[in-house]
C-alpha cells in the first residue's frame, strides 16, 4: 500500500511543478516526473512476490513468473514519454529564442 501511495505522491509532486512553477524547464521536469510515476505504478501492479523475471531459460521447469504485460506496456509508455519530452523541449527552446526568458509570466502574447 505504501509503495503504491508513493507513486501517487510522485504524481502529485510532478503536478505541483506543472501547476505552480513558472519556469518552462521546471514544467517539463514536472511532466517527466508524472510520466515516471505512472510508469512505476503500472510496473509495480504486475509484481508477484517470489516470482522470477519473465524470461524462460529451461523448457520443462514449472514457470513462476511476474506479469509480463505491464512490463511490455510500460516499455511502450517510456518511449512515448521520451517522444513527448523531446517535442516539449523543442517548443521550449524556440520560445526561449523568441522571448529570451523561461518565465511564463513574461511570455504573454495570448490573452485568456
Amino acid at each position, binding site marked *: 500500500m505504501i509503495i503504491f501511495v508513493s507513486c501517487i505522491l510522485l504524481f502529485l509532486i510532478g503536478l505541483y511543478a506543472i501547476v505552480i512553477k513558472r519556469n518552462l524547464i521546471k514544467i517539463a521536469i514536472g511532466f517527466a516526473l508524472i510520466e515516471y510515476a505512472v510508469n512505476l505504478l503500472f510496473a509495480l501492479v504486475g509484481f508477484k512476490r517470489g516470482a522470477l*523475471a519473465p*524470461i*524462460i531459460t529451461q*523448457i520443462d521447469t514449472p514457470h513462476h513468473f511476474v506479469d509480463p504485460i505491464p512490463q511490455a506496456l510500460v*516499455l511502450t509508455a517510456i*518511449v512515448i514519454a521520451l517522444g513527448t519530452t*523531446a517535442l516539449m*523541449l*523543442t517548443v521550449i*527552446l524556440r520560445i526561449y529564442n523568441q522571448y529570451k526568458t523561461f518565465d511564463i509570466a513574461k511570455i504573454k502574447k495570448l490573452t485568456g
Partner: protein
Amino acid sequence: MKGMSAIVKSITNITIGFIFLYGVYIILHGHLTPGGGFAGGVIIAGVFVLKVLAFGVDKSAEKKSSTIASIFESIGGLLFVGVALLGLIVMGTFFLNFLPKGEPFRLLSAGIIPLCNIAIGIKVGAGLFSIFLALAAVKYIMED
C-alpha cells in the same frame, strides 16, 4: 560544434566499436534475453552522439548526417510495416508471425520477432540521433 580534447578523442576511438557491437548484440538477442530493438537502438544512437560530442561536426557534415538519419528512419519504419503487411499478404492477417518458429533459445528462432527488432533498432537509432542533432548540434536545421 567543436570537438573535445585528444584524450577524449582517443578513448572514444577505442570504445566506440565495442559500444556499437553491444548495441547490435542487444538488438539481435532481443527475443532471448532482456533488451531488444528499442534498447539496442538507443545504444546505437548513443554511439553516434558520442562521436559527434567527441570529434565535433562542421555544418555540411551535420546536414548530411541529418539527411541520412531521416532516410534511415523512414526505411526502418517501412521495414516494420512491411513485415506486418507481409503477414497480410502471405497468410491474410496483419502482423501474423508467419515464419517458422525454429528451435527455442537459438538466435534464428521466434519467426518475425528478430526481424521486427532489427527494424525498430534501425528506426530508433536513426530517430534519436536526429533529435540529438536537431536540439544540440545544429544552430537551426537549414531549409530543405
